[in-house]
């Protein structure tokens, strides 16, 4: 347990700076390398989206930064919040950072809300902890915050317990508490995955309001590319514990340079298009993090895979300005659409058969 790094000045322009973060979990079957060297920097007021499917390591990254992983986790690298190192801090030190500088929003709002206190009380406590006001003012602010996040009848809801509210409302209460703390960074880990679509829209709007009011930067972790498209400025794509592509939102969505990103975009059904094309799935399944083969982890599923891919894992290198991709053949992906690269088949066995026929 190291003591807090108080010597470095608080760097207000970079509220969150993660450098070569790795996380490994020892298990009965071996060492699971959940995160294998992730680096990203968040600028003030910026919104960063971390996209990945299950097993990509995106949630583990956030939890590592926040010191929420179990003791057995092996963490290396650096994660600085406003210049202060958070990895390896003891519980008291990191609790001080959590809540004040960083607000956390999880998938299940009940993780953040205490079931035995009313919503109003929890909000008022948060306000009182950060602002020097009287009790009544804190309660007024609590009702005001509930209104800002779009909860109807805020004056009455202030006296409700969390279990009396629906999932969407609870999540908005969590966002309200986050606003009360006036953080520098909001980390939201799959905040809307468990919610209905119309409720998701409400919660995301509340999140936008929270950002506007507090000027906080945002790290939005999700598997939903649609949510990312509308709410972030920059995107990092994770696969098998590493960043495989990062760039601005337009760069990632319109000119991806890593086959996985391309495949991901091609496998999405589009609500804004009449059904014209078949979807192009990515065949196979993500690799086991226990026994990662050498080379690029995406190679077994990649149509471009060559021997070099199976031997050397590509680094995340810049391909154009702020756009970086981890692929040996990223230059081949300029102006390529998913259907150029992936086949619109349904089953892997059929691909096998087709390839046999082609010979």
């Amino acid at each position, binding site marked *: 347990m190291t003591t807090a790094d108080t010597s470095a000045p608080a760097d207000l322009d970079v509220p969150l700076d993660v450098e070569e973060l790795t996380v490994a979990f020892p298990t*009965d*079957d071996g060492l699971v390398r959940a995160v294998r060297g992730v680096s990203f920097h968040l600028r003030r007021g910026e919104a960063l989206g971390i996209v990945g499917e299950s097993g990509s390591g995106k949630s583990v990254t956030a939890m590592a930064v926040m010191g929420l992983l179990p003791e057995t986790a092996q963490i290396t690298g650096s994660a600085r919040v406003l210049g202060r190192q958070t990895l390896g801090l003891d519980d008291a030190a990191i609790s001080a950072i959590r809540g004040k500088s960083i607000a956390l929003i999880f998938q299940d709002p009940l993780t953040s809300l205490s079931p035995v206190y009313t919503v109003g009380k929890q909000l008022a406590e948060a306000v009182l902890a950060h602002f020097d006001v009287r009790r009544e003012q804190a309660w007024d602010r609590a009702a005001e915050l509930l209104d800002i996040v779009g909860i109807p009848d805020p004056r009455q809801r202030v006296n409700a317990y969390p279990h009396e509210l629906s999932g969407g409302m609870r999540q908005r209460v969590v966002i309200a508490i986050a606003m009360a703390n006036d953080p520098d960074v909001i980390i939201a880990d799959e905040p809307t995955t468990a919610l209905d679509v119309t409720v998701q829209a409400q919660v995301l709007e509340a999140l936008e309001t929270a950002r506007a009011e507090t000027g906080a930067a945002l790290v939005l972790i999700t598997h939903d590319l649609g949510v990312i498209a509308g709410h972030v400025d920059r995107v990092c794509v994770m696969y098998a514990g590493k960043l495989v592509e990062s760039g601005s939102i337009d760069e990632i969505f319109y000119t991806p340079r890593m086959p996985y990103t391309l495949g991901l975009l091609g496998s999405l059904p589009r609500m804004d298009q009449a059904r014209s094309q078949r979807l192009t799935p990515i*065949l*196979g*399944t993500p690799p*086991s993090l226990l026994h990662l083969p050498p080379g690029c982890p995406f190679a*077994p*599923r*990649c*149509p*471009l*895979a*060559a021997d070099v891919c199976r031997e050397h894992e590509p680094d995340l290198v810049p391909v154009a300005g702020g756009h970086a991709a981890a692929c040996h053949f990223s230059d*081949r*992906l*300029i*102006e*390529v*659409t998913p259907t*150029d*690269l992936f086949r619109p088949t349904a089953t*892997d*066995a059929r*691909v*096998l058969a087709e*390839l*046999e026929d*082609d010979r």
Partner: protein
Amino acid sequence: MADIETRTAGPTLAVAAETINTEQRSQLRLALARFVRHRLAVASLVVLLLVVGFAFIGSMVWPYDHTVTRGVPSSVAPSWDHPFGTTTAGQDVMGQVMRGTQQSLKVALTVAVISTTFGALWGAIAGLYRGWVDNLMMRIVDVILVVPLLVLVTAVAGNVRGGTTWWAVALVIAAFIWTGTSRVVRGVVLSLREQEFVEASRAMGSTDSRIIVRHLIPNAAGPIIVAGTLAVAFAILAEAALSFLGFGIQPPDTSLGLLIETARTAPFTRPWLFYPPGMFIILICLTINFIGDGLRDALDPRQTMVRR
């Protein structure tokens, strides 16, 4: 449109892509492998087999049996001739323990099998149907549980013919103890029936009996096995109490429990009468318990096992 060379991928793409990480073995071999991994269970199995051998084969070999025999000195401490000593009446304790183990094992295993089977079915039916069926069945269970075993036995003892045979006492104990299993199984079934795979089975046209036998009971195997092992322990001790009261195995025949009961006053004066049968009771209960643990693990396919 860019010209992408995708043929370089080759069939290795598809084959490598669709992988499952475990090696294939047949169900039985997998279950055996899981059981074997449980070293305590394997050791217990060996010990139990030794005990069974001791009881059944040993009694054929050992020169003395459990009855009073001429030429057997009375009240002798353990010696080479009589490793467990002798009783005041002139019985070789080793012969007694052998016979006693036989009878106790017979009773205990019969009770375990009957009570577990009946209790599991009862609990599964009650759990699956719910409503008034469940209510009725569980109230019957409650009534049986409320009545003390000994009162039940004395009421029954006078009417049952052959009250002194081992299978009669086994039946009586089973008739009492199945209730515990039924409650446990009902609890498991109540949660299982909400699972989608039960609904899927119905959607295919399964009958209720098929759902109970093929889906609910196998998925409740863990608790059923545990209930079974507990039944064994209970049965041995219950049999002792009943036999002592006159219902069940009577002298000159003997059981482990009866041996313990008659030697109740002896632990300090003539310990060889008390400790050997006591040790065997403990051995049997412990080994069955650990074997049950091993079986439970062996039958659960979700145990992560043998991954290469």
